[in-house]
């Protein structure tokens, strides 16, 4: 038996022995484990599962063991992933520390920074948020104005961020700040504790109701100079890498959100199905067919891109295409659901609507943000035109 085969056998056995039963069921949104200084575990088994995975370093399987990771090779990590999928194991820990900051620190961080920040991320002790957008720096992110004055041993940070996800629940922030007037070459990447004096957050209510986004204000916040990641004024490079990564994540949002709402043809049948299950309105039936066919074509395209990438024929514009098409398709899906369900999909609260119907309405509204956050659809189309099609500026 090859080493990898042995690894697979051992991993499978460990997972089967250690993953609690309820951790093998689909995860409700509110059972996600985010860690942090005040961790919450709605389902007690999620704490057990989290702790066992932390003990293996498998919250971050490919990170070095020195930093709390599992030290796995890419192949081994793939096997772990396969086996977790096979058993329907839940992801034990979520957070921007794992998905965004960790990779940045591994690439750009000093040894001291790695030692200070990576293990707490791996162990879910510190929850991170991301300070990128500002009121006047949306699509034009590099226009950010939050200022960090270099005062020798510290930076003095003043300004405002917006769309800071979970800022009100986060312990630390990684943040793009302006350290020079040159638009792209004057941006730096700073880390600081959200408890630092001068940091304030204010949650943003979205049109869909409550939200995880905040406005975050910095008033003379003192950040130790050692919390600069990478070189001074070189933060834009880091930001670009993270943005591409984020795009990929958001193009999944539609699919994830879709997961909490039944497929469009199911909703259509529920409200418009005749005795045989056929959607009784032929015009809406055609629209539903178009929707599910494009969904299928899109899924196949994502799969194809995966194969191409595995074969080394990766396409630089793929993430923009997926971000664009996935989010637009998701918006169309909800508009179509609204047409099929009629007024029953338009309830805000109250007993005359089922919980599913109320979710439909909120999720429809939330879907409108998908084509804005993480780079608008317009920006994605610009990127495709330029990078993939080579059209001139």
């Amino acid at each position, binding site marked *: 038996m090859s080493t990898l085969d042995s690894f697979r056998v051992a991993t499978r056995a460990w997972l089967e022995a250690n993953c609690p039963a309820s951790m093998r069921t689909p995860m409700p949104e509110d059972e996600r484990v985010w860690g942090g200084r005040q961790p919450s575990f709605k389902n007690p088994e999620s704490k057990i599962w989290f702790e066992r995975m932390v003990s293996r370093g498998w919250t971050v399987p490919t990170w070095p063991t020195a930093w709390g990771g599992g030290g796995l090779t890419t192949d081994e990590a793939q096997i772990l992933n396969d086996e977790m999928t096979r058993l329907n194991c839940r992801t034990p820990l979520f957070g921007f520390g794992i998905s965004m900051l960790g990779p940045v620190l591994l690439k750009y961080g000093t040894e001291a920074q790695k030692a200070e920040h990576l293990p707490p991320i791996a162990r879910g002790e510190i929850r991170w948020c991301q300070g990128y957008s500002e009121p006047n720096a949306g699509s034009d992110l590099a226009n950010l104005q939050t200022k960090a004055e270099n005062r020798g041993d510290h930076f003095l940070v003043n300004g405002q961020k917006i769309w800071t996800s979970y800022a009100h629940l986060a312990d630390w922030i990684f943040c793009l700040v302006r350290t020079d007037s040159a638009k792209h070459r004057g941006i730096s990447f700073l880390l600081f504790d959200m408890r630092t004096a001068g940091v304030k957050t204010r949650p*943003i209510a*979205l*049109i869909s109701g409550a939200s995880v986004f905040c406005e975050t204000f910095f008033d003379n916040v003192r950040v130790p100079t050692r919390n600069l990641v990478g070189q001074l004024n070189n933060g834009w490079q880091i930001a670009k890498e993270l943005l591409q990564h984020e795009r990929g994540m958001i193009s999944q949002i539609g699919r994830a959100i879709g997961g909490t709402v039944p497929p469009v043809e199911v909703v259509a049948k529920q409200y418009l199905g005749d005795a045989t299950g056929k959607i009784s*309105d032929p015009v809406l039936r055609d629209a539903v067919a178009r929707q599910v066919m494009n969904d299928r074509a899109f899924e196949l395209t994502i799969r194809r891109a995966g194969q191409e990438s595995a074969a080394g024929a990766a396409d630089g514009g793929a993430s923009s295409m997926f971000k664009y098409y996935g989010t637009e398709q998701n918006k169309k899906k909800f508009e179509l659901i609204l*047409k099929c369900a009629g*007024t029953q999909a338009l309830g805000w609260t109250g007993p005359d609507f089922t919980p599913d119907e109320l979710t439909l309405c909120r999720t429809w509204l939330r879907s409108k943000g998908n084509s804005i956050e993480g780079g608008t659809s317009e920006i994605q189309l610009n990127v495709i035109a330029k990078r993939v099609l080579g059209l001139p500026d």
Partner: protein
Amino acid sequence: MGLVLNEEQRMLQRSAQEFFSARQPLKALRTLRDNQDATGFDRELWRAMAELGWAGILIPEAYGGAAFGYQGLGLILEEAGRSLAASPLISTALLGGPLILSAGSEAQKHAWLGAVAAGERVVALALDERSRHAPTSIATRAKSQGSGYVLKGSKVMVLDGHVADQLLVVARTSGADDAAQGLTIFVVDATARGITRTRLTLVDSRNAANVAFDNVEVAATAVLGMPDSGYAALAPVLDGARVGLAAEMLGSGLEAFERTLNYLKLRVQFGVPIGSFQALKHRAALMYCEIELTRSVVLEALTALDEQRGDVPQLASLAKAKACEMLELVSSEAIQLFGGIGMTDEEEIGFFIKRARVAQQTFGDAVFHRDRYATSMGF
């Protein structure tokens, strides 16, 4: 079409503009929503609107109305649509009053219309029973009992149903569940025994209720007009409501578009106003065309209503379908073009998309009306 306004209409338009911008700006709806106001509109303001003659605008002077016609009401609804004003204009001025006028006996008209025109009574139409508009799919039954009837069934999306004084209930006295024949309209006291009203809290923060009728006993005098032929009286009034709603939607679309246009001129990214980007310009120009087309069909339909032309049903479907398509486009584009800020509850633009979808579904969506238009054209 009556496009060029006469002096009287211009005055009406000016007074509507002043009324809604001063007394019912969009933030009034937000306040009603945030306070979870039990009524869902401002009774004080409704009385003020009645004093301006708007509650009885479609009612002849003989019955205490202002008789200003659909074109006049269209002007008011367009302005109401700009500020998304919540009021019984649609339930009572556009539907309740005119239906009593259309179907009622002289005695019934004299009994009810004066109070409607005075803004003293809210009269709601209890028609639809499904989540998509289907005006002849009526399963609510009225059975003869003694000299009167007993009503049994349930209605959805009754506009202002929770605060109505009277309900105009469309019930089946004969015929199959989806036949236009065999429907009878009853004027029923909204607090009559056996009636349960559940106020709906809709995404647009406007007013509607589901209403259940559990063996509600009504007198024979409650029949509005003739038994079994209520649909003939209802149909033209319903078309009027579709056109009136299309006028409101035109106003909402215009307002959302103008706000978006303004944002495109002010919002700077990459050192220039985002309205200078050609792709956004073209989308704005497209919206402009759709709004212009909608204005034309709404005006034509309003005129046809006042002239009681034979093509009212066709034009009503044209106006409502076009208003639905336009407003779906404009309200969606508005959010996208406002970007992140448009997703916040703090920014008012989101109220337009919420109202848009409810208005789209009310009295038939674009699919419904395209089908109806095709049938009217014989294909």
